[in-house]
């Protein structure tokens, strides 16, 4: 390869890095101050692009001047900033004290709502944007033509970095933001109106996302998938750079931009794997990212969110469990549809239970649990479809696949804690998703694979239902037992105080890793069962929406209770199954319900049940 070519490749890498940084910097600032990982940041980016493809052509009608183009871009950023303010005032302000898991869920609710709103306003068809007047030509660099607009983008990143640095270090607003990043309550006690500070931060963060989106329009048309695709990249950048660190995000964006630009030359198909390797390498050396700092240890210990006392089942609880079991066994007496729903509920119950084993019992908030569910499904499904292996053996492969990948990803994940950990699980899940999606020869890509059917003896819905019942109930009983056993207690202990656990000689990281692997295996088993119940596998099994479904089940069931997630899975699945066919706007509906649940029902069904019973008769 010649020199000139490499140079152009490097330049285009830098141009991508620049846009990526603009977006990620907003995410990292908002996270720093509010401690909320804002999923809707990707939605702001998408809205920035949609607003720009609406506003900019309209302005260019007046005159085809570069100034009007950039005025349009800026207006789009400001409009999106204003939407950020709306989100802060209507939603975030109410959930700053809610457990972080539910904050994440609530912002994902916003993602769903925005998706439907965009569909309603702009329709399903991609909208191409105008090119920037004055920057449409190519620039001659060492004999190679390079688009002028890309060259311009290269300068945007450092300019934004410089402005943000000045803002953070030379203005009082910036110093206050940095202070609030650490202790917002104390900032309030010193007389600073935190509400204004937070609103201002959301404006800044959303405007940066909007700017990133608006700047994209000459390069790519606005479309409805922009939100989730960019949010993964932005997450990866913030994780590598260190969450809350703007300069870190810059370095990470440049690394990733260059890696992708050159990676394409070497491994055209799997640049994502390179990104993964980079992230893994950074996290092994610096678990908190390049320029990140560990989360400050809380002064006075607070009671953790999650299972407090696993307890025993009392009379009423036993009766309830027996009733549920009888229902499961009696389902085949009803119609075929009931059997189908019942089978699915059992499988989802196992998945949700395994997630609560991490979240409720271990304080390990995994936001990408669907990855292990889906990889289990693929593990089993590929063996059947590509290898001709029978169901019995393939089902064994499901927990192995889920567990193996949980062990691999978990090795990095358990080095972090809290919200950092949640981000990382999500990033890994997205990488798994992308690989499954892109590796068409093996996985069938977007369409997935069909023909994942049970063996002949188990082919009837009823028989398969009983198989599923036997396997899932046994697995749930086993996991419940583990929660009561020393291993489960050790995970709870490490969640309560990692410092104390370390001081009594517990290898906290090792135990978390084993727990993560166990939960991944259980989720993989559930995924395998799911594949055979559907007869097919596709990438949505690993997607963010699937992970969100699992979390919504926990939210509905209550993470404080051992068995609540099972009830949550049943309720969630029943409701979704009932409502989805009724409306075209199920995403809007689901998003609003998730937010409503977070706001009014934060302890879930089990919490409601417990307080009902605690009330004196």
């Amino acid at each position, binding site marked *: 390869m010649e020199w000139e070519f490499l140079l152009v490749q490097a330049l285009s890498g830098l141009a991508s890095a620049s846009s990526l940084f603009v977006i990620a910097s907003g995410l990292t600032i908002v996270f720093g101050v509010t401690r909320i990982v804002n999923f809707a940041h990707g939605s702001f980016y998408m809205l920035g692009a949609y607003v720009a493809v609406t506003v900019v052509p309209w302005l260019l009608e007046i005159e085809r001047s570069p100034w009007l183009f950039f005025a349009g871009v800026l207006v789009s950023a400001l409009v999106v900033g204003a939407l950020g303010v709306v989100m802060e005032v209507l939603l975030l302000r109410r959930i700053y004290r809610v457990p972080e898991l539910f904050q994440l869920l609530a912002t994902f609710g916003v993602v769903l709502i925005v998706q439907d709103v965009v569909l309603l306003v702009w329709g399903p068809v991609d909208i191409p944007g105008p090119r920037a007047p004055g920057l449409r030509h190519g620039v001659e660099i060492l004999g190679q033509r390079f688009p002028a607009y890309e060259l311009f983008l290269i300068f945007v990143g450092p300019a934004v970095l410089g402005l943000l640095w000045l803002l953070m270090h030379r203005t*009082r607003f910036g*110093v*206050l933001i*940095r*202070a609030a*990043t*650490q*202790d917002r*309550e*104390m*900032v*309030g*006690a*010193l*007389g*600073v*109106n*935190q*509400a204004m500070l937070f609103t201002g931060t959301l404006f800044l963060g959303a405007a940066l996302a909007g700017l990133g989106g608006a700047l994209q329009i000459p390069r790519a048309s606005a479309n409805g998938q922009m939100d989730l695709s960019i949010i993964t990249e932005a997450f990866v950048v913030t994780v590598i750079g260190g969450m809350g660190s703007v300069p870190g995000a810059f370095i990470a964006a440049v690394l990733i931009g260059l890696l992708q630009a050159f990676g394409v030359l070497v491994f055209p198909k799997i640049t994502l794997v390179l990104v993964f390797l980079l992230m893994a390498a950074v996290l092994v050396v610096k678990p908190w990212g390049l320029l990140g*700092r560990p989360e*400050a240890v809380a*002064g*006075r210990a607070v009671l953790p969110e999650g299972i407090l006392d696993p307890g025993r089942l009392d009379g009423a609880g036993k009766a309830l469990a027996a009733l549920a079991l009888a229902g499961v066994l009696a389902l085949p007496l009803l119609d075929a549809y009931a059997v189908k729903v019942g089978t699915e509920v059992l499988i989802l119950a196992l998945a949700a239970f395994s997630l609560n084993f991490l979240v409720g019992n271990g304080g390990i908030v995994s936001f990408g649990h669907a990855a292990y569910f889906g990889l289990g499904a693929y593990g089993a499904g590929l063996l059947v479809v590509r290898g001709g292996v029978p169901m019995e053996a393939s089902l064994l492969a499901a927990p192995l696949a889920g567990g193996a990948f949980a062990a691999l990803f978990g090795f990095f994940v358990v080095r972090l804690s809290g919200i950092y950990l949640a981000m990382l699980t999500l990033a890994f899940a997205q990488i798994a998703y992308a690989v499954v999606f892109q590796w068409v020869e093996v996985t069938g890509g977007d369409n997935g694979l069909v023909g994942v059917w049970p063996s002949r003896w188990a082919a009837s819905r009823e028989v398969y239902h009983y198989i599923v019942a036997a396997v899932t109930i046994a697995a749930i009983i086993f996991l419940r037992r583990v929660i009561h056993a020393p291993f489960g207690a050790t995970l709870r202990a490490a969640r309560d105080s990692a410092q104390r656990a370390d001081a009594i000689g517990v290898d906290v990281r090792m135990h978390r890793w084993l727990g993560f692997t166990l939960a991944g295996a259980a989720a993989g088993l559930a995924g395998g069962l799911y594949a055979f119940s559907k007869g097919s596998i596709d990438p949505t099994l690993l997607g963010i929406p699937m992970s969100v479904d699992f979390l919504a089940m926990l939210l509905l069931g209550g993470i404080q209770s051992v068995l609540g997630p099972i009830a949550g899975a049943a309720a969630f699945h029943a409701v979704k199954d009932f409502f989805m066919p009724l409306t075209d706007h199920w995403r809007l509906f689901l998003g609003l319900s998730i937010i409503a649940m977070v706001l009014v029902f934060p302890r879930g069904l089990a919490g409601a049940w417990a307080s009902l019973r605690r009330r004196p008769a």
Partner: protein
Amino acid sequence: MAEHVLEVTGLRAGYGPAEVLFGVELHLARGEVAALMGRNGAGKSTTLKAIMGLLPPRAGSIRFAGQEIAGAAAYRIARMGLGYVPEERRIFTDLTVAENLDVGRRAAPAGRAPWTPERLFQIFPNLAEMRHRRGGAMSGGEQQMLTIARTLMGNPEAVLLDEPSEGLAPVIVEQMAEAVLRMKAEGIAVLVSEQNLDFAAAVADRALILEKGSVRWQGSIATLEADEDVRRAYLTV
């Protein structure tokens, strides 16, 4: 009454299902230093947090400078001139000493000389040497001094001080007592929560003893020092 800068009546507060304060009654005169004493868990910190608006009061009235502040947001209360120094030294560890002070800065009320970093460094000479050090790289005691200095930057009329002598070397405790007396000399009223009777005696005019969430005894410090029965009953010294 006008001469009371702070007046609390029937204050109730708690955490979730746990009730901690059951009708606290107290007042603080202008320019006065009063010590809020009591055993661990008696509710001293809870009282201060509830006054400051960091914990929503469940009942009762809190009047500061003649205005009702119960239920107001902490920042509003701080802007009215009430300062708060928490017990867990919550300095901003990523910010330098100078930046920490800057976060606390608020304009002084008319007619009063504002606190500046230079004036504060006279009271806390240790801090002067580490103006540009990150808060996180300071020892526990150094952080304690910074929290007080930071609060004074807001030019408060009254300050709630939660266990300022905790974790300080004896010589520094003496310095801290001098700092409180300097504040008093500047006309700042101070409500200081304290378990250390020596320190309380050195700085306060009056003591209030909190027990199980309400004020059980109050009187002058001299009386408290003389009355062994009260001390044994409430302070277990």
